[in-house]
């Protein structure tokens, strides 16, 4: 406990002055109010001006169009959608498609990025050179070019549906995408899922107990047989009692395309692969910088304790490096999300393509639609950076403790 010098409490007005005007006091406050007023006035002028111009040209405005029928189809939708649904629905279809490609892209970009960074830092000459070549090639080629490369050069070169590459006659790969059997729920599905959830929660409980036993009493407990029993054994028993949870619908060639089964469209694959490999090359450099920023004495200390290189990295170096890695990593996540709007070039139905593209030209309401789209990207970006800030704050706290 340090002893703090006692200060006379600030008077109320003085405190208010500080809070509102900073060091400049009331002068600062006046400038701030004037500045805010000017900003508000400019915003008002922009809105009023746009509205007046729209009215003189009789261009439709307002958000009423969102309840009209869209009348066009979309190739991939995570929610039920037909061409008689509204523009609201189109908005959500596009939003979910953007989110899907962003989340999966972020996951793969992070994994590939970490692997490449560790390759580059590897003492093995060949492995480190391969990592270096990956980074220097991928990050120096334009992203749009890479998306088109994956779409037009790699995936379009696959055979047509009638000459599909078939794997055990259940999986089919062709230029229309990857067609896989689809799981169709049976009566046993609900108990199966319930038991699986119970198993996972119980397994987490066991892990927590084992960790406490290790840290508090130094007792090692081998938990994997219990975990296996909980996660695999219990659902198996449930299946025996209630019957199969689901059956698989095998795709069959019918007319031009496959009927039945689920399909991953090539536009999605091309976009995800291009986004994650491209962003991974930047993440690799960020991770490498983070690891290099940890003093090499840490690694040596780990080695002198008898830890292997991998274990020392995992337990000692990477946790300290995360503090440096997280802020620039957030930037890359935001870039990936925003770059996903290049989807329109290859016909992937993301938010910009279906909503800020098709819907704008069908309704002509560019101002409303672009504003909504900008709002969505802003919200996505702010959410991502908020999550990453919390994560960074937790790392800092645990390292400081």
């Amino acid at each position, binding site marked *: 406990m340090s002893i703090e010098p006692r200060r006379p409490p600030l008077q109320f007005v003085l405190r208010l002055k500080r809070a509102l005007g900073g060091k400049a006091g009331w002068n600062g406050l006046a*400038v701030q109010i*004037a*500045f805010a007023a*000017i900003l508000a*006035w*400019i915003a008002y*002028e*922009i809105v*009023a*001006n746009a509205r*007046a*111009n*729209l009215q*003189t*040209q*009789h*261009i*439709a405005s307002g958000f009423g169009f969102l309840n009209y029928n869209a*009348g*066009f*189809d*979309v*190739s991939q939708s995570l929610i039920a959608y037909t*061409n*008689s649904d509204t523009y609201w629905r189109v908005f959500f279809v596009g939003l979910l498609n953007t989110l899907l490609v962003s989340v999966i892209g972020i996951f793969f970009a992070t994994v590939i990025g970490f692997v490449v960074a560790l390759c580059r830092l590897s003492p093995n000459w060949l492995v480190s050179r391969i990592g270096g070549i990956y980074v220097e090639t991928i990050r120096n080629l334009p992203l749009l070019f890479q998306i088109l490369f994956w779409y*037009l050069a790699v995936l*379009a070169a696959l055979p*047509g549906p009638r000459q599909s590459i078939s794997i055990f006659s259940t999986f089919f790969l062709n*230029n*229309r995408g990857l067609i896989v059997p689809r799981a169709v729920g049976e009566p046993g599905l609900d108990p199966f899922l319930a038991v699986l959830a119970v198993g996972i929660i119980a397994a987490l409980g066991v892990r927590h107990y084992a960790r406490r036993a290790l840290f508090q009493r130094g007792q090692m407990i081998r938990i994997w047989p219990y975990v296996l029993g909980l996660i695999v054994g219990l659902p198996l028993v449930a299946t025996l009692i209630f019957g199969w949870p689901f059956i698989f619908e095998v795709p069959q060639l*019918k*007319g*031009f*395309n496959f*009927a039945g089964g689920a399909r991953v469209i*090539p*536009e999605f694959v091309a976009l995800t692969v291009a986004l994650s490999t491209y962003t991974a090359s930047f993440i690799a450099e960020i991770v490498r910088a983070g690891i290099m920023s940890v003093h090499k004495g840490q690694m040596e200390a780990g080695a002198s304790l008898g830890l292997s290189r991998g274990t020392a990295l995992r337990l000692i170096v990477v946790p300290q490096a995360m503090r440096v890695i997280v802020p620039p990593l957030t930037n890359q996540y935001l870039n990936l999300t925003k770059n996903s709007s290049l989807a*329109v*070039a*290859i*016909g992937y*139905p993301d938010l910009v*393509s*279906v909503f800020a*593209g*098709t819907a*704008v*030209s*069908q*309704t*002509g*309401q*560019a101002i409303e639609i672009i504003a909504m789209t900008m709002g969505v990207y802003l919200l996505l970006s702010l959410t991502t950076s908020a999550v990453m800030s919390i994560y960074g704050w937790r790392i800092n706290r645990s390292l400081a403790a």
Partner: protein
Amino acid sequence: MKRVSLALTLAAAAAALSVQAASAQTLKTIKDRGMLSCGVSQGLPGFSSPDDKGNWTGIDVDVCRALAAAVFNDPTKVKFVPLSAKDRFTALQSGEIDVLSRNTTWTVSRDTSLGANFTGVTYYDGQGFMVKKSLKVNSALELNSASVCVQTGTTTEQNLADFFKGNNMKYEVIAFGTVDETVKAYESGRCDVFTDDASGLYASRLKLANPADHVVLPEIISKEPLGPMVRHGDDQWFDIVKWTLFAMINAEELGVTQKNVDEMLKSDKPELKRVLGTDGNLGEQLGLTKDWVVRIVKSVGNYGETFERNVGTGSPLGIARGVNNLWNKGGIQYAPPIR
């Protein structure tokens, strides 16, 4: 002091924003600029496409050249702005272009809520389908479960949805931003079918590696009257664009061609004298000159000549006049009289 000047700058910027209201003086703006700004496609042979020297040709391009001829007596005073289907209306609304002459279908929603007016029909078209010959498909009704490539932001996209729904057929749509991307995806085998206005199908087929391997199916599933568009709020400019096209059609009806127009000027037929401006001041009433029709026909020819040169049997597209023939020759092209 610094703060004050910043505030002043902001105020000036805001004032500048507020006075820039929609201008109703399109003709004056064009004359002051010395150039007509014309929105066209990004390259659709026969309608608007640049050649290897960057010269634009096509039936839509000729409409703009005729306008420039009527205004400046010089068909080269046009700046062509290539636009994708989904950007075209925004460009017109924002004033970036004076007229949109870009194979655009006339519909009621576009005539009203987009804040624009169609001025006439340069080409009566309809939507069709193109498939590979090897698929051995003879009718659009055999396309159940097919994958269809389409350009986004077009009436084509909506007609397609209506057609498949109306015939209880399933399909997969893949929508691309530009026509080139769409054709490329079709050619690479991503889709079984490419759909567009029939004229567009013939034009795009020319760009394919082996045009003879592809066939346009006989069904025409929609009405696609294509025409130029102007902004709401300037009746004078609306009239000029409208009557420029009508002048070309009337010229064909009267037998006035690029070659014989000087000869025709000597004619004493009252109808010809009125149209060619040797009698009366109809052109001046439009805000142009008396000899406006002469200027137009001299620079691009009459409607029939434009058609034959760009899309007709004399062009690589080889499309027959069909419904685009004059009303008194079995077609439906009909212009109100100039009098």
